[in-house]
């Protein structure tokens, strides 16, 4: 497809379609605490212990996390579902020398939910800049769930040009801008120019500009004057 699927056609069935990913500063410890006393805890503990001892076992436990840990929103940790949190904990359990290769592999062979979980976990892992290619891969897609997850705190490793294009792509594909970490801090005059040009095209086409993008453009241009 050369053109985004217009989100206006019909809202996706799954709530994850227009993800309310608030960029957050969660920690691995907080994610772990959220499972305290939960029915999935025994499975999770076993899988985490297995990954620490036999890192290769993560291929299966990572794929099964939705079925074993459930997919409901995680109590006490806004923006995280149980499967995403379980997957982050599995990644965090990897021995340090296996973290990068296994993370790249899990993303490469992941379905959409697994890819999204990897992207969301990145800022919580001691992985440096090794996973930047995963962000670039996610930003190449037209999948709103992946675009949103790629613009969390780990996107600080994206250079400014790639970051601006990513923000504009969110606007273009209908991903809410509250998914973008440090939006106002990073937004610059060049992004304002790109948004203004986009607004002009939309106006010419008689189509509305998303409200959050319009608001951002207003904030950026009022600062200038």
């Amino acid at each position, binding site marked *: *497809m050369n053109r985004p*699927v217009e*989100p206006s*056609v*019909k809202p*996706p*069935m*799954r709530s994850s*379609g227009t993800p309310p990913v608030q960029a957050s500063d969660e920690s691995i410890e907080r994610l772990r605490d959220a499972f305290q006393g939960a029915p999935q805890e025994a499975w999770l503990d076993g899988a985490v212990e297995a990954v620490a001892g036999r890192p290769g076992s993560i*291929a*299966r436990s990572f*794929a*099964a996390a*939705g*079925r*074993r840990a*459930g*997919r*409901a929103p995680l109590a006490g940790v806004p923006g995280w579902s149980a499967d995403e949190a379980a997957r982050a904990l599995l990644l965090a359990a990897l021995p340090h020398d296996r973290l990068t290769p296994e993370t790249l592999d899990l993303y490469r*062979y992941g*379905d*959409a*939910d*697994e*890819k999204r979980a990897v992207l969301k976990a990145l800022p919580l892992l001691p992985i440096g800049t090794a996973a930047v290619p995963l962000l670039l891969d996610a930003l190449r*897609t*037209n*999948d709103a*769930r992946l675009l949103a997850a790629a613009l969390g705190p780990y996107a600080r490793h994206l250079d400014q040009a790639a970051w601006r294009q990513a923000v504009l792509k969110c606007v273009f594909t209908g991903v809410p801008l509250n998914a973008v970490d440090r939006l106002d801090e990073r937004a610059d005059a060049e992004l304002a120019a790109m948004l203004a040009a986009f607004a002009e095209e939309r106006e010419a086409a008689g189509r509305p500009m998303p409200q959050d993008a319009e608001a951002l453009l207003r904030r950026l241009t009022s600062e200038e004057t």
Partner: protein
Amino acid sequence: MRIFDPHIHMTSRTTDDYARMAAAGVLAVVEPSFWLGQPRTNPGSFTDYFDSLLGWEPYRAAQFGVVHHATIALNPKEAGDPRCVPVLDLLPRYLDKDRVVAVGEIGYDSMTPEEDDAFERQLALAVEHDLPALVHTPHRDKARGTRRTLELVAASGIDPGRVAVDHLNEVTVGLVSGTGCWMGFSIYPETKMSPPRMVEILRRHGTERVLVNSAADWGVSDPLLTLETANAMLAAGFDEDDVDRVMWRNPVEFYAQSGRLDLTGLTAAEPSFAEPTFAGSSIKRGGE
């Protein structure tokens, strides 16, 4: 009327098709991995395709309110190509995924020893990953291919109730009906099976363990022939419950055996879709 197409290659179809299908009541589909018309030349070509079946395609389907699942395999047409066979080693990774509801399409194209080997190995993978198997029967030498398929299925040790033998016709249905395997029929505009012929088969063999699909792909095919068959059933005197069984409950029962069929998006919108037979078991999201 609600329709579950248990075999359709949506990757080859347009968004217009999705819109027409949803409007006609085709609200759930299973997309088996298959040949693309153009032969593949390496395992990476398969993995990109599998990624699409588990990533972009279900996302695309969801925009139109259609629930999409997939089956994963090395297809029979490419099972004899030594450049493609190494993908068998990558399959276990994909067979663990949430929306994979069977191993398939597997089976025969030309009935070579190489195809025997891939078929056998993939039936073993189905058992190992606790998944049903979707078996394609060959277009050429179909009756002999179907017999040989059933021999190999029996020898593999997989429960026949977890095997669908697809693309059957008047000549081959009798070979399968007594085996306990499910019987699949692909309704095509010109070849394979037509709605009136399908109705005649249902009259003779009943509705039990019958799956009706459009198998629509990049060839001459029509994703609404399931609906046309349903209407032909009603016109021939079948009642709405018979139609619902063939077009919805049968495919749900077959694929729910995977434990990974997730129709919660639909049941939330329309509670009557939660069949008492299956509610509380494997079609529930997160069910074990």
